[in-house]
């Protein structure tokens, strides 16, 4: 019974990683950059919902919408101010700038929302499911995380493969210059990518904070790194890969913590990642890409 419990919790955590990883993968696929500030946009999303719901007393749905809008705008702004001037620079320069943005967001949040942890009010209102006479409990947040991540993966795949904007994104990810020649506006496509990625981060922030209701200025940092691992694990650039990677990382983390050693659970996640990459150097679903770094 306990095993089932661990498994469910692992999938729940993994689904949240998956949503975060999708943001990483999307931005990486199109803009070819590791957006290290992605984890901090999650934190901003969390604070946006918290402020709207607790401080201003807005209703849940409006607050959620507000958070998505805030994060989307933030994503576009960051891209315009910090990344766009470096479009032609080496990807390492952009990586460092992203780290700068990450520091900036964390410390700005510290100044605005102070250092004390906030307790997040769950935005999920789904009753919990009891299995086996209450021995196994599936929380509403778990159900929500799984449903939301599946919907996002399906929706994103449909969007990318079946709409004009989505195909433009694919084209830009294949070859920026060729895409430009074909009349695609590369700049606006990249902006769109950041907008979607940041909107997803807002959703991830809500799921994360609803499941683990604490909110500080570093809330997004560690989940961000683990989701990044998940994205690489599944093959960075691949949407279903991010989903698979996220869930696997979540399950390994929880099972490792339960059955082997809590101290070494994180080490184990990384060890499995290394093993997978040894066998399949571009991740589970990754395609071979020509590296420029």
């Amino acid at each position, binding site marked *: *019974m*306990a095993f089932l*419990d*661990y498994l469910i*919790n692992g999938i*729940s*955590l993994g689904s949240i990683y998956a949503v975060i990883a999708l943001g990483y993968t999307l931005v990486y696929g199109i803009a070819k950059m590791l957006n290290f500030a992605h984890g901090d946009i999650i934190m901003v999303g969390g604070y946006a919902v*918290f402020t709207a719901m*607790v401080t201003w007393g807005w209703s849940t749905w409006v607050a959620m919408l507000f958070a998505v809008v805030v994060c989307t705008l933030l994503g576009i702004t960051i891209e315009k101010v910090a990344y766009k001037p470096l479009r032609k620079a080496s990807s390492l320069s952009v990586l460092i700038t992203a780290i700068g943005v990450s520091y900036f967001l964390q*410390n700005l949040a*510290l100044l605005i929302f*102070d*250092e*004390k*942890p*906030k*307790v*997040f*009010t769950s935005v999920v209102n789904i009753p*919990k499911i*009891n299995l086996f006479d*209450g021995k196994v*409990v599936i*929380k509403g*947040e778990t159900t929500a995380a799984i449903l939301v991540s599946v919907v996002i993966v399906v929706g994103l795949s449909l969007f990318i493969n079946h709409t004009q904007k989505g195909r433009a994104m694919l084209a830009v990810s294949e070859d920026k210059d060729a895409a430009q020649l074909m009349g695609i506006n590369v700049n606006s496509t990249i902006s769109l990518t950041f907008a979607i990625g940041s909107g997803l981060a807002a959703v991830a922030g809500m799921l*994360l904070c609803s*499941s*683990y*209701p*604490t909110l*500080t*200025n*570093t809330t997004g940092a*560690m*989940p961000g790194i683990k989701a990044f691992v998940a994205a690489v694990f599944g093959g960075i650039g691949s949407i279903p890969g991010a989903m698979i990677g996220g869930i696997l990382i979540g399950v390994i*983390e*929880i*099972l490792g*913590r*339960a059955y082997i050693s*809590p*101290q070494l*659970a*994180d080490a184990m996640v990384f060890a499995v990642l290394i093993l997978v990459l040894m066998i399949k150097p571009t991740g589970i679903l990754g395609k071979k890409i020509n590296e420029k770094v």
Partner: protein
Amino acid sequence: MKFAKKLMALSLAAVMAGSCLTGCGDSSSKSDGSGSSDGTIVIGGSGPLTGSAAQYGVAVKNAAQLAVDEINKDGGVNGVKFKLVFEDDEADPGDKAVNAYNALKDKGMQIMLGTVTTGSCLAVIDKTKQDNIFQITPSASAQDVIKNDNTFQVCFTDPNQGKASADYIADNNIAKKIAIIYDNSDAYSSGIYNTFKAEAAEKGLDIVTEQSFTKDSKTDFSAQITAAKSAEAELLFLPIYYQEASLILAQCKSADYSPKFFGCDGLDGILSVDNFDKSLAEGVMLLTPFAADASDDATQKFVKAYKEKYNNETPNQFAADAYDGIKIIAKLVEKEGIKADMSASEICDKLKKAISDGFKFDGLTGQGMTWSADGAVSKNPKAVVIKDGNYSAL
């Protein structure tokens, strides 16, 4: 990257020049802690003001400032006033803690209140020893912190807390089957855990499962809770800080698991977390030297003043320890007749002898506190239980 290099070189030159100017200005008069001429004693505080441990550092800084202001308002001690300078050490266990300490020295620190976290404290204790600066830490609770003769604690040493907790649980027959969840990457938490475990074995308590977590994975406790639940533990011992504890309480509830909860002073503050559902903490027992709604005058006066000054926030035990720390320093300064123009080393020699020599202190965090020469405080822990959203004595 030729240009980058030049830009860097230029900025380095500017930075160096700037630092030299400011550095020289300060150091020429004060860097050896040789005392100040304007009649104030400089107390240096160090703790995390940014980063993930900022909540503890800010509490200490605020309360220490409050205490200093109160003392100065009353005309100081023997006419000597205090000045608090506080530096951010980011809770770093290495160079940043030492940087903060050095910055304090440059600002003429004569007595040190700090550091807030154990890791940073371990990095600076040998520096304060070398410079012979009297150091009293409000909250760094590891045994190693007080290995030098110039370092003293306001808080309990970890082993004491672990032992006292196990004794309390056994003596009052609260539970027999116990599960522990502790932070393995934190010195405070693993310190309490180690002694709790040893004492529990002596007292015949049955520890059914020991679960830990680390700094990097302190949001998801489902695995630990499931383990405790399936081991049928009646009591969950939580020698951790309140932020993680609030998550454990919430996750226990959603897993339909309701054991008794028992914690140490790190749990204090849980009720004042923004937006926290107080019903979750109902019945939680904790061993803490300070409870913000205790009915004694001193506590009430402190809580009122703190709330007035800092945005209506309720002080936690870090704040109380820091407030006591400053008051302890003040009382010692009074007793020894310390003058503002004495050097840090001179002050240290006097204070470290005085504190363990029949000195008694009644503060927020304990009555009749005394210190042994090795630096540990002796005071009685109070057990409190959370009832109707408030602390009440057990």
